[in-house]
């Protein structure tokens, strides 16, 4: 290289090329170091470009056993204001907020104060749910700053029908009462969750969505409740409510053999579509959340125990002390004084003294065991929230007087479901069923039965139930306490109860009048409970509750076209007997 002249133009080219290469190398190296610095060593923090988007799913419906929709969810819209957008618009149009508020006021018909309250920054939720027409109107205005959120609104098409059973949901769609609460997890389904990128202008890009959780719509609940029976029950309870003006009436219709609740209602009722308008007291399902002293109804336990233990026979004479008996340091009274009654008549006439004597024959321990066998003092396991077990003290907590109180339904507390379940055991041949309200879950095309037919526990023998049924049949006849419960042609069995309420530690003149009865029929084993809390104008279960029971049963039989055993259905339904029976109730005449 050195032998070439250093001034040669080619050598200059070569040398300068070397310089160029080094300069380029340096520059490329700078870029590379810059890349390492910016990408790995000190990467700038990226603000959130991906948003979590929750896809709300519709809450499952609630259907009766025939498929009538009792509760459903309809898509709705909520309204928010986006102050960022409003501020942007205000730059162009300074009076924009006033215009927006004027529009809102006009469409939503809100007062100024209300509007001021809901449109306060920074999180102005104007309405959680808009009506469809309001939504349409607002959407058409296309005003910037209005943000609609998609929600689902719970609707109960039949209003107060079965309100206590179904319950209601809160603002966020969470179950608050009744089945809506009990089956909340099943009904609400699973909201879908996906990550959706936003573009530089804040818009979501659905095509780049990454689904983290697919939305699973809530399952539909199919109830055991029969819409027709429920309507009948509600109407009859409403009549009873107007007739006796009680604090509360509870009515339950149950299928004795399976434990399916066919209808359940309380009065006063409320409309779950606007549940917030009634006090909380009205929203409780008192069939399970309250207990009452059952009174004479509880005598069936003693009677069943005596028969089961073989201590008595039907015609066994029992002296009833002419209505007044001093026992264990207390006076015991009968409503009507009786002399000697047979075992059968003790139950039919509902003699307290006779029953206590039977109980004394059994002894405390046996009596207690039978109470437990009938399921008193424990939860029935019904799928309604808030059930209480009632009160049944164990024997060692009993006072000396307890043996004279428990058999006639004092010192014990039962809820209505327990009562009807005990009676169902007599109707179905001695089995303690599990009452339930929900028959199956439906999601997609699948049905999941919730209660598989488990063999219910037998608590008394079939013979006992037959014998007891024949006695209880006479209760609902002219010789018994519940003559007004009888339906000519049908075998109606039942037991009245008239329990004085304990107020401030003393038995008061206020009563709970109740009647639990069942139809002794091979095709339909219906048990019906009617319990009237503090009726006015009349007191006895046979007078207050029995006629309501009878009307309910009669209308159910009509709707089912169920003829008495061995007769023609058509003749019975169209015959005069039924109508006359109803007239008798309305005129309150003795049959």
């Amino acid at each position, binding site marked *: 290289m050195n032998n070439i002249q250093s001034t040669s133009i080619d050598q*200059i080219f*070569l040398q300068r090329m070397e310089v160029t290469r080094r300069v380029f190398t340096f520059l*490329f190296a700078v*870029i590379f170091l810059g*890349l390492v610095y910016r990408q790995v060593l000190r990467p700038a923090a990226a603000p959130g470009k991906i948003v979590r988007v929750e896809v709300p799913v519709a809450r499952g419906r609630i259907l009766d056993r025939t498929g009538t929709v009792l509760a459903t969810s309809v898509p709705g819209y909520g309204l928010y204001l986006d102050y960022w957008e409003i501020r942007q618009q205000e730059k162009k149009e300074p009076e924009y907020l006033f215009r927006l508020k004027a529009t809102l006021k006009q469409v939503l018909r809100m007062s100024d104060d209300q509007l001021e309250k809901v449109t306060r920054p920074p999180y102005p939720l104007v309405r959680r749910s808009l009506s469809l027409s309001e939504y349409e109107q607002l959407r058409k205005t296309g005003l910037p700053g209005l943000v609609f959120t998609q929600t689902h609104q719970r609707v109960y098409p039949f209003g107060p029908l079965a309100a206590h059973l179904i319950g209601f949901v809160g603002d966020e769609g969470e179950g608050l009462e009744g089945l809506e609460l009990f089956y909340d997890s099943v009904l609400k389904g699973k909201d879908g969750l996906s990550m959706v990128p936003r*573009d530089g202008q804040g818009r979501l890009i659905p095509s780049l969505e990454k689904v983290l959780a697919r939305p699973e719509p809530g399952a539909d609940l199919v109830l055991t409740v029969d819409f027709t029976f429920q309507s009948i029950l509600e109407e009859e309870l409403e009549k009873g409510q107007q007739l006796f003006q009680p604090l509360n009436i509870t009515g339950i219709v149950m299928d004795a053999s399976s434990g399916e609740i066919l209808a359940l209602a309380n009065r006063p009722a409320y409309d779950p579509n606007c549940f917030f308008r009634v006090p909380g007291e009205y929203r409780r399902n008192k069939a399970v959340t309250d207990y009452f002293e059952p009174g004479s109804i509880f005598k069936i336990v003693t009677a069943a125990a005596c028969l089961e233990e073989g201590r008595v026979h039907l015609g066994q004479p029992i002296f009833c002390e002419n209505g007044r008996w001093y026992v264990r340091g207390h006076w015991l009274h009968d409503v009507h004084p009786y002399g000697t009654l047979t075992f059968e008549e003790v139950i039919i006439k509902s003699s307290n003294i006779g029953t206590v004597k039977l109980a004394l024959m059994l002894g405390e321990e046996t009596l207690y065991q039978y109470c437990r066998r009938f399921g008193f003092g424990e939860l029935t396991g019904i799928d309604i929230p808030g059930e209480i077990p009632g009160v049944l003290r164990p024997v060692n907590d009993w006072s000396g007087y307890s043996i004279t109180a428990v058999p006639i339904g004092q010192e014990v507390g039962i809820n209505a479901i327990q009562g009807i379940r005990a009676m169902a055991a007599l109707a179905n041949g001695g089995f303690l069923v599990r009452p339930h309200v929900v028959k199956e879950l439906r999601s997609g095309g699948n049905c999941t039965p919730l209660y598989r037919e488990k063999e219910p526990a037998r608590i008394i023998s079939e013979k006992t139930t037959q014998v007891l049924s024949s006695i209880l049949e006479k209760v609902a006849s002219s010789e018994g306490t519940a003559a007004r419960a009888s339906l000519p042609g049908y075998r109606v069995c039942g037991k009245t109860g008239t329990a004085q309420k304990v107020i401030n530690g003393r038995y008061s003149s206020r009563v709970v009048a109740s009647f639990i009865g069942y139809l002794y029929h091979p095709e339909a084993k219906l048990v019906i409970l009617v319990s009237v809390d503090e009726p006015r104008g009349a007191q006895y279960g046979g007078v207050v509750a029995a006629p309501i029971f009878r009307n309910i049963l009669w209308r159910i039989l009509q709707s089912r076209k169920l003829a008495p055993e061995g007769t023609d259905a058509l003749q019975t339904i169209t015959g005069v007997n039924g109508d006359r029976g109803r007239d008798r109730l309305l005129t309150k005449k003795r049959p």
Partner: protein
Amino acid sequence: MSLRKRSRLYYRLCVASAVLLILGTTVVLSSSTGPAIEKTGNPLYYFQRHLLWLALGGLAMALFNRFGLRRLEKDKKILIFSFIGSLCLLPVPIFLGTLRWIIVGPFSFQPAELVKLTFILFLADYLRRHRYTRKQIRNLFWPVVSFLVITLLLQFQRDLGTFVIIFLSLGLLLFLAGQPRRHLAFMTGCGLVLLVILILLFPYRRERIVSAFLPGKDLMGKGYQPFQSKITLGSGGWLGRGMGAGLAKLLYLPEAHKDYVYAIVGEEMGLLGTSVVLFFFVVLTFSGLELALRARNDFQRFLAAGIGSLFGFQFLLHAGVVLCLIPAKGTTLPFFSVGGSSLLINLVSLGILLAIARDACFPSSLEDLQESSLLHYEAPARMVWRRYHPVRFRVPFFLRYSKISSRRW
């Protein structure tokens, strides 16, 4: 140097251009979807056009590669006329009412891209003929005049990026042509003054400089683009989010598919991707420079150096803008940015470069070999470095320097 070693240069060039074309086309598909949807609703709008231009450019590249070089070499008029023609096209967008594009039917063409190439062709031809009278300052007349004309015309298009690139190319070629250092220093001084004047003339350029060097200021306004560019690069990390999975193109990074496409590469392919792209641009540039040493004649020598450095300058400016090392000036990345005319011109340049390489690496006769004047000065494979390192390893070609005698260059 053996022929086998020479052919290595040609293949290196081929591989580099193939990789850059494939990667570039993929990145165009990925980066242009967001803006394409925003503009037309069709996510493939830019990509389809790009493919069309790619086909067209490929054809032009093949033509220039096969027939172009010899004609250009022989015919001085073609070069002059093509240069003047492209100069005439430069102000046409002003009359059409567009900023930088001549729009014909579905195609839009940016004459500034054409000027880059024709200017280098013109310079190569000019310097070939005036090389041996290098010390006379009047030799600088035509290059400087044409440069000033281009600068003036570019100002109507508000195109500072092309100005910088042309200025650098001019400087480099004059430097290689052996202009005295005082001439070069004078020219550099004048160029810098011109640059300052151009920046001061247009207020938006001042703001861009402020935003480039004070990126924390006015994040949602002028500083938004550099800020987003940093975020985009940073979110890539080592390996990136994956091809097509980037988010910055969704209108976060304005002009992501054009002036900031390298940031998208960084976001989707991470440091790995950006390094690969960097590496192949290094290959392209250095191959061009190496070709300049081995080329058959002076024209090819300057042309190879000019085209190679043109790719290098474009990459460096683009990457510098993306890294916020220099103010934003709208420089595209060859083969990666959306833009039909840019792709076409880059492909033609590549075709010419390959033709030079083929001529140099596969000489058809002994005369060809002897004709190339620099062959005798071939630097012996003398690596100072290797002396101190007994371990034998191949020094990468872009680090293989010969000694620079400091006395005169």
